């Protein structure tokens, strides 16, 4: 983290859903900051990690309710911002990449057109300029033949290419913050590495902030600078990624021990024993 004021400040963020069976508290008072760095949010399904990412962009699905003491992005109060300001922020200053590019890309429009469209909408550039930039970004995410990918439709791309096309679309507007929700879970390990390398470059070279939401503890530990471990809607532990092996919280320790490892054979994997105390108050 740079010494300056953080890019994003989140304090006591709560996301609640009113359902037929009662109030579901998906996120229960989460506080963290993100600077120009790679912050990982890890947790199992239902831990609230994805809802945390969505709440920042005010993309919480209906009938969800978001409250926070503070949700501050570069001096803008995201909770109070009107829908127009949010539209400006989304895609332009904060971008989001989701797990499956198939659901995020329009199937009846060529990939290049969609990317150029996004640049025109947010960057205020002309058609020619947008096309030039789209090709440039496709090359930047290491597409071997940007021209071909530009003309291709989403179904003609492999999963890894689709995800990189998404990243090209999101990053062409040079956002300050990227929220990536399981961006590589659907990808093969080698492709995953390549996608991560692109994200890594963007953070280190352009000074972008990255929130990396994932279930994969190993991956987050090796990729991110800091890790927030979420359990049942709360952050149970925050630590430097390099110090993950010295995690203090029994949940983090349990998750680490439950992972089979190539370099450390065990006869039997440790099974996570959930302690009701981890839920904290108000569960």
């Amino acid at each position, binding site marked *: 983290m740079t010494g300056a004021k953080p890019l994003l400040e989140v304090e006591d963020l709560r996301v609640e859903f009113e359902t037929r069976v009662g109030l579901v508290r998906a996120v229960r008072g989460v506080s963290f900051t993100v600077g120009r760095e790679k912050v990982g949010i890890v947790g199992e399904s239902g831990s609230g990690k994805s809802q945390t990412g969505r709440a920042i962009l005010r993309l919480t699905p209906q009938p969800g309710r978001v409250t926070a003491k503070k949700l501050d992005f570069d001096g803008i109060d995201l909770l109070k911002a009107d829908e127009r300001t949010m539209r400006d922020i989304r895609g332009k200053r904060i971008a989001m990449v989701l797990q499956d590019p198939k659901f995020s890309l329009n199937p009846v429009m060529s990939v290049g057109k969609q990317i150029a469209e996004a640049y025109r909408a947010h960057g205020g550039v002309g058609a020619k300029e947008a096309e030039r930039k789209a090709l440039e970004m496709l090359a930047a995410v290491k*597409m071997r033949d940007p021209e071909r990918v530009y003309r291709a439709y989403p179904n003609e791309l492999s999963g890894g290419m689709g995800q990189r096309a998404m990243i090209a679309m999101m990053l062409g507007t040079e956002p300050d913050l990227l929220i990536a929700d399981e961006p590589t879970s659907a990808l093969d*390990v080698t492709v995953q590495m390549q996608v991560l390398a692109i994200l*890594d470059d963007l953070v280190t070279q352009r000074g972008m902030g990255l929130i990396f939401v994932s*279930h994969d503890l190993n991956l987050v530990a090796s990729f991110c600078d800091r890790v927030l471990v979420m359990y049942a809607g709360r952050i149970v532990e925050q630590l430097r990624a390099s110090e993950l092996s010295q995690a203090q919280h029994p949940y983090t320790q349990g998750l680490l021990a439950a992972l089979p490892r190539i370099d450390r054979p065990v006869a*039997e994997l440790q099974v996570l024993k959930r302690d009701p105390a981890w839920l904290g108050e108000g569960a």
Partner: protein
Amino acid sequence: MTGAARRLRGMAEPLDAGQPMLAAEDLHVRFADVHAVRGAGFAVADGESYGIVGESGSGKSTVLRAVAGLNPNWTGSIRIAGETMGRHRPRSFHKRVQMVFQDPYGSLHPRHTVDRVLSEPLAIHGMDDAENRIERVLREVGLGPAFRFRFPHQLSGGQRQRVAIARALILEPQVLLLDEPTSSLDVSVQAEILNLLARLRAEHGLTFVLVTHNLAVVAHMCDRLAVMNQGRIVEELSVDQLRANEPAEAYTRQLLKASLGYDREAARALATFD
């Protein structure tokens, strides 16, 4: 221990010494315009746990489905306990070989109770004492009798996978084909299921063929593994060789490196894209 354990339980005639439980030779699988498996061959000994790893599109699941008889478009030879298999599998095959699928949400019929899922195989094979068998197998996979009359949507992902394992076990097979059995589960649930599978293998002397993209899971569960790429087995190695980081093939080394987590330098060195 495994072969002996089964013989003690009187489950099936022992194999001749040295005869593999499962052997595939020169296996090819063709779909309309794709040659998905191009001459794969491997042999798995009785009681062994054999892994097949590869990335998506490598043909690893296709091999498993061909062995299982779920895919008729194959050529080559498949032998189970010395018996040559054809397109259509005899009833005895299903008593000997069972399968667990990747997605526990998709592998259980949404309108069938656990009880129905488990009693149907018994009815098909005319096995008696259904009542006791169902109770026993539910206990074995760590689900009590309380789960017997529930529907899949009333179960968690891990519980569903336990039901799927129970369904595979209830016919008392010798071979379990496992197709990414834990890849759609959370890490903590994965540990429970892997432990369960390991325990069941030890107790029943089962032979495993485990298909996965996760090298760590293979390293934990298997004795030997095959690495597949573009329809071919590029390398066969022992788990000890894998752990010692001694694969012979560049592809395997790259896969291993990528599995160990993000590494800036390794990412740069990866072969080109697309």
